[in-house]
């Protein structure tokens, strides 16, 4: 192989490599745009947002000392001397709805158990039940917020 041959070969090679580099760059970028577009297309939220605000009617419906289950939230509204408290009945483990039992609440899915104040008696749940924010509106209704 003499010098000229070698030079020619190098030029051809690098030209080819250069073209290939640009082409692959174009193709990778195109791939990124297609993938990005696809992700944007698929990540559109087509289902209505979950309700986070519940008007559960007049506060008079929940007399002192009452513990009322509100299935639509789901939550337990407790009226004590210190006021109204809404205890979430959504299990803090994986979100199933708790069922009341003798000691408090039990989860039908994985058998977590909570006492009447919402503290964990036994797992797999580790966090106590959430106490939901409450507001009393001007016309005397109770509003419960889950978020």
């Amino acid at each position, binding site marked *: 192989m003499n010098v000229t041959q070698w030079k020619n070969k190098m030029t051809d090679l690098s030209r*080819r490599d250069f073209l290939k580099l640009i082409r692959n760059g*174009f*193709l990778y970028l195109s791939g990124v*745009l297609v993938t990005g*577009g696809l992700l944007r297309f698929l990540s559109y939220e087509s289902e209505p947002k979950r309700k986070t605000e519940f008007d559960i009617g007049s506060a008079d419906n929940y007399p002192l000392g009452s513990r009322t289950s509100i299935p639509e939230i789901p939550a337990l509204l407790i009226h004590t001397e210190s006021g109204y408290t809404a205890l979430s009945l959504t299990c803090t483990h994986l979100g199933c709805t708790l069922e009341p039992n003798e000691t408090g609440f039990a989860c039908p899915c994985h058998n977590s158990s909570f006492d009447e104040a919402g503290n964990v008696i036994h797992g797999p749940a580790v966090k106590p039940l959430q106490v939901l924010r409450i507001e009393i509106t001007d016309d005397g209704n109770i509003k419960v917020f889950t978020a």
Partner: protein
Amino acid sequence: MQNKPTTFHFLLLIASGLLLAALSFLWWNDSRQPAPISLTPTLSGETEYCLTCHVDLPEISASHPADTFGCVSCHGGERLALNADLAHSTMRGGANPSDFSVVEASCGGSNCHSGSEADDRHHIQRVMTSVQSTYAGAIASIRYTFGAQTDLNAHFGIQAVIDEQSKTGISSLETFNPVDEAHPSIQKFGEECLSCHLHAEPREGEAYARETGCAACHSTKKHTLTTAIPYTQCNACHNRGNYDLRTMTFVERTDHPTQRIDDYYQPIAQFTQCEYTLDCVDCHTRSEVMGDGDIHNDQASIEYVQCKTCHGTLEELPLTKTLTDPNDIAFTLAFLNPIKDLKLGDTIIVTEKGEPLWNTKVLPDGTYEMIGKATNQYFTFRPVMGTACEQKPDEQESHYCHECHAVEK
């Protein structure tokens, strides 16, 4: 040779470049689109995207907040479409959903303006049968004059209407079709003189433009509904020109009058001060203007408010009523046009048919106050009783009052 860039490599390079360019264009084009603005009215719970383009529109009225009603429940249209042509293609009545051809779908419904007579929300039924809409009296009068009918009773309206429970004895009107008429003057009347009435298409031109349907009166400016209706709104029909009975033509005026007393179209008309200071709706009641649900023969049989309604006569004070029922219609009317704080225990003037003039009040000294519904102006006035008025007791209609009290033009 294998290592040389071939034509294919060049073509593939160009193709890759073009593909990237096309995809970039696609992204750029997507980024230019306005972000959709959604609204989920509480009434329907169905999300709509009209606000994407119409975000600047003012709230149409306090009684129809967009958060509750949205746009589509009144206007129709394709609620998800972000293409103007498609979105607007199924709108009711174009920009005016209160046009009588679609009013039932837009404004009706038993919870809205097609309620029962008992709950006083039969607005559509009332306005459809009113003389404002039927023009029955004028049609009957013209047909009688030119020999097409032998009595002055109403048989035709601009559109056919039926009211089987009518208390006036007229249970239906047929559609007046000028083409079917024999006399040329009646035909001419049909061409020239029907355009003001609410069921009819307005005339061309901007000078006295009005909407059709409810909006003719209640929409005083773009995207507004109100019961505070100024006289200028009424003037769109009631002062927009004059008719010539000999040639049976309508001559439109081209100016917008500013002097209310001088610029009324009927030169012989006489006015007292209140007639050109107040707005029409300050004295004329709902049933007079919008009908009472029955089909009436002519304007004279529905219009009844007179000077004496507020001022009484030498022998009688005007009728009044002390508001004791919190469900009194007066409170609803005052709520819709909150120019004053109407309270339980207030005494207001009522008409002889019992309609409340809720913008009035009897003052402790026996005089009266009135607040302009459209202007919010404050007026006081006195009863006739106890004054030096010399009018005969049996001549108490307004035109007798005009003889002394009219302001000279």
